[in-house]
């Protein structure tokens, strides 16, 4: 009786107990001392685990910070986080280059109509695999909001069938840029306001047929820009962020309104963004 029924149960229980006690003791006595600063530093980080710093999440960045990684890599945390981290680690504070996302599409798909009636799965990745999306322009935003889904700051939304970024909310983590199957989203410096909201590299005539807001490569902006910050290559204008001073001359002269600026309240969503901007800069 004992040999057949009780002993196996006792034996297995005892073995399990022994193993668990061994593990408990081992984890107690052989635990590796985690750098105390790492825990403190971790608390300063936003915890979005966006990966904008280039490390695998906030925990990893906190660990690497204690080993001497640069303190100014956390874009969502910005200057305030960098300052706190620098205090804890006792290193000199370095300015964080704040960034935000822009969507390089100016689509009027809602107006000019779609190429097809897409009834597939409602995601940009799926839609863009099927004949490059439902829009007439194969470069443009499909508008199913893969970027909206990944945004942790509620900063990007689909407005009139195209993704638009709220500059004030955007932390510049770049998750949306990774999610966009058309690679329409760029992460640019916070100080830059002007960008070309088009990725269409077709010739002007073709672009015009697809979308009336697209860049047709007319080079008017190139001639207007006093700093030589905008150039047309492959029928598409591109702003050199290092030279641009956001004067907005190119925006005024663009015949198709393909160049957008975050300064004009009409073109930014939402309108009260201007006041917030002043508060932040002041």
């Amino acid at each position, binding site marked *: 009786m004992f040999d057949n029924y009780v002993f*196996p149960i006792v*034996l*297995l229980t005892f*073995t399990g107990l022994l193993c668990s006690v*061994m*593990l408990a003791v*081992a984890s107690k006595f*052989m635990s*590796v001392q985690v750098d105390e600063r790492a825990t403190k530093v971790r608390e300063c980080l936003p915890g979005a685990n966006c990966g904008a710093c280039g490390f695998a999440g906030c925990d990893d960045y906190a660990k690497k910070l204690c080993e001497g990684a640069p303190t100014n890599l956390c874009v969502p945390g910005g200057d305030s986080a960098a300052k706190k981290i620098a205090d804890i680690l006792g290193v000199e504070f370095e300015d964080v280059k704040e960034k935000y996302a822009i969507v390089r599409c100016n689509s009027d798909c809602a107006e000019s109509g779609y190429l097809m009636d897409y009834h597939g799965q409602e995601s940009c990745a799926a839609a863009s695999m099927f004949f490059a999306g439902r829009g007439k322009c194969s470069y443009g935003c499909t508008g199913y909001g893969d970027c909206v889904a990944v945004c942790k700051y509620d900063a990007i939304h689909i407005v009139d069938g195209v993704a638009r970024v709220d500059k004030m909310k955007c932390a510049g983590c770049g998750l949306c840029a990774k999610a966009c199957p058309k690679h329409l989203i760029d992460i640019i410096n916070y100080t830059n306001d002007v960008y070309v909201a088009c990725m269409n590299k077709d010739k002007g005539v073709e672009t015009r047929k697809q979308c009336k807001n697209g860049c047709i490569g007319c080079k008017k902006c190139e001639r207007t820009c006093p700093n030589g910050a905008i150039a047309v290559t492959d029928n598409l204008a591109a702003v050199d962020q290092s030279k641009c001073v956001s004067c907005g001359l190119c925006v005024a002269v663009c015949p198709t309104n393909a160049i957008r600026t975050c300064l004009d309240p009409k073109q930014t969503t939402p309108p009260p963004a201007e006041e917030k901007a002043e508060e932040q800069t002041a």
Partner: protein
Amino acid sequence: MLKEYFALVFGAILVNNIVLARFMGICPFLGVSKKMDSAVGMSLAVTFVLVMATAVTWPFYTFILKPHGLEYLQTISFILIIAALVQLVEIVLKKYVPSLHKALGVYLPLITTNCAVLGITLSNISDKYNFVQSLLSALGTGLGFLLAMVLFAGVRSRIESNPDIPEALQGMPITLISASILAMGFMGFSGLVTGLFGV
């Protein structure tokens, strides 16, 4: 005697290759063979755990289970022991050999209940190996796993970048096909050990 041991190790590496002849441990074989360095890391971790697990389970079976006629408990008790052992090894490595822990770290928890580990510890018992033979068979099996992983990682890196593969076969299908061809290639080794060592 020594000859027998050599035969055992070579047999475990080539003839009875754990992945390609016995079809155990297929999951890491397909999952972690995309990159050469992770393939090597995984195989080293498997080898390490295999030897450790055998060193613990063999005495447990021989001195505790067998005298009491509890052979039927081997599977469940081995799972328990191996899982606890891997966790313990991880803790110890983290404390005393951080560099090894860093190299094996990601893969150690993954193989806690790898069927290759359980399979070899069980087949060591069913093959009636003694303690040294069991250890050698575990070591050979681990090395065989390493060989298969390295070979296949090389094959795979070529396959994945090859544009000539028909669309329907890209990805997992062609990986499985090439794995089967590799397994057929290993059939050529059968009889090698008998021929070489005459055992």
